[in-house]
């Protein structure tokens, strides 16, 4: 990374921490707080998903599986063992996601492209069915209500700051990962897997690695969300949840690290603003996505970078012509 990039990066982190860190100070509105909490947790989920898709080139249509496991890890522990088990439940959910992703990786990362996508979708829907039908354990369609984090975590503002710290630390780690040698290999896997083999590196092994990493952070996002909503629901496993992080990533720009985070913020804000005016808000999101994919395939962040580069180039041309 060049010096200018480092500076831009510092500014971005400063803005991110500043805006979300100051929100509870500026606004004492509970609704705003929950909204911001949704944005940062979905942002983490989307960034984690994009490690698979934008970086490594693996389109998973089943990351909801791990998001759900994270949520139900907390939900089931709290339901059966009491609210003191909130944090251990989160740890258990993340651990379970890691183990499952590792094992599942051997099964489904033997196929590429659309076959991988279909298999991830199938396993996600399988988990949804199990959660939906296994009523006496999971509560089925009722979900699990009354998940109140224990002690001071029960304070909405405090819990928000805990989420923010977890999200910033996680996104920071994923950012470091994408700039690291492992991140470089993962990008190479997307661009030219045959050549990666000829570097003496195993393509599938690296794909399994990032699959586990992405799934762990999806589960963390699910666990954090259970405390925001004070409930979990089978929807967390449903394919539309997997689809939502895909939309967020495409909207924000899959080839920009922070694109999915911006995309998550935009989708959540649109859902909220448009959703409060019309029940047809999915139609608006649909039209928006169609416009993005057809006219601005680089995503919001990608197109913005493009505009900036073009503008700088023009300024340079003007300067040259004097």
């Amino acid at each position, binding site marked *: *990374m*060049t010096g200018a990039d480092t500076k831009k990066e510092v500014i971005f982190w400063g803005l991110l921490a500043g805006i979300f860190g100051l929100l509870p100070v500026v606004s004492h509105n509970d609704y705003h707080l929950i909204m911001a909490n949704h944005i940062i947790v979905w942002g983490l989920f989307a960034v984690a998903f994009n490690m698979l898709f934008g970086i490594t080139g693996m389109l998973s249509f089943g990351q909801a599986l791990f998001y759900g496991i994270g949520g139900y890890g907390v939900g089931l522990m709290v339901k059966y063992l009491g609210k003191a088990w909130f944090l251990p439940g989160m740890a258990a959910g993340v651990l379970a996601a890691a183990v499952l992703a590792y094992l599942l990786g051997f099964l489904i990362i033997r196929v590429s492209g659309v076959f991988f996508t279909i298999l991830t979708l199938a396993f996600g829907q399988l988990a949804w069915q199990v959660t939906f039908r296994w009523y006496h354990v999971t509560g089925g369609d009722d979900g699990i209500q009354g998940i109140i984090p224990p002690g001071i975590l029960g304070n909405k503002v405090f819990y928000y700051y805990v989420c923010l710290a977890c999200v910033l630390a996680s996104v920071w*780690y994923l950012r*470091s*990962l994408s*700039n*690291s*040698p*492992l*991140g*470089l*290999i993962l*990008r*190479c896997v997307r*661009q*030219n897997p*045959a*050549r990666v*083999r*000829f*570097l*003496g*590196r*195993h393509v599938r092994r690296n794909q399994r*690695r990032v699959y586990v990493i992405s799934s762990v952070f999806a589960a963390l996002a699910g666990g954090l969300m259970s405390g925001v909503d004070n409930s979990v629901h089978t929807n967390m496993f449903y394919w539309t949840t997997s689809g939502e992080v895909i939309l967020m990533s495409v909207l924000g720009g899959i080839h920009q690290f922070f694109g999915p985070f911006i995309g998550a913020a935009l989708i959540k804000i649109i859902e909220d603003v448009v959703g409060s005016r019309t029940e047809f808000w999915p139609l608006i999101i649909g039209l928006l996505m169609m416009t993005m994919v057809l006219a601005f395939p680089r995503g919001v962040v990608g197109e913005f970078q493009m505009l900036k580069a073009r503008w700088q180039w023009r300024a340079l041309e003007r300067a040259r012509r004097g």
Partner: protein
Amino acid sequence: MEPMLVLENVNKAFGGLKVTDNVSFSVMPGEISAIIGPNGAGKTTLFNEITGHLTPDSGRILFKGQEITGLHTQEIVARGMGRAFQITSIFPEETVLDNVRVACLSRLGQTRRSLRSVGNFSQATEQAFAILESLGLKDQAQRPAFELAHGDQKLLDIGVALGLEPKMLLLDEPTAGMSPDERHLTRELVKRLWKEFNLTLVFIEHDMDTVFGIAQVVRVLQQGRLLAEGTPDQIRSNPEVITAYLGEELA
């Protein structure tokens, strides 16, 4: 002296078509040699068998005295086999520097490191810059690889291979698609890299100026069979080769 690479009665058929027909030869350490032959003679197939992309139907391939027949590409690469491809095989969206650096990191076993930024891996970075310097690509280090001219992309492909510090390097048509001027430069460059990096170098080539200009040994393939093997002078005057391949061009 023990040969670097030995092929013993290697055979390969695709259906009824024999693409490698009982080929045997030895490549000595430090040798620079060419494989020539008409299109479809099985030259690239032979490279694919040596690098584990294809497994021979029968016969043995030994590299540095050890059998490598049927091993995975990754294992053969780890033993010091490098290769640049006929159709340029690079990482287009990464910078020129990172294309070579990823190979250096791979050789140093650092590709699992996930916390520090690639720029902090100084040994790999310095080595990558040194390779780019040798290839004359250092000025373009920070550009994305897809922006390079065709000829420079071919050089970069060689650079990626060199990052692995191979003992042996296989080049598949290093001058293909180049102008006569570029060809001349590439020829000199290949020769210089061969000396600079102490390589055992085997290249496939159609450009006869390159073949007879820098190869110490020339091997001629025809319809999967090794038709002749010898010094450039021997090959030039071999009647079989003249009728089969070189034709009137060199007669």
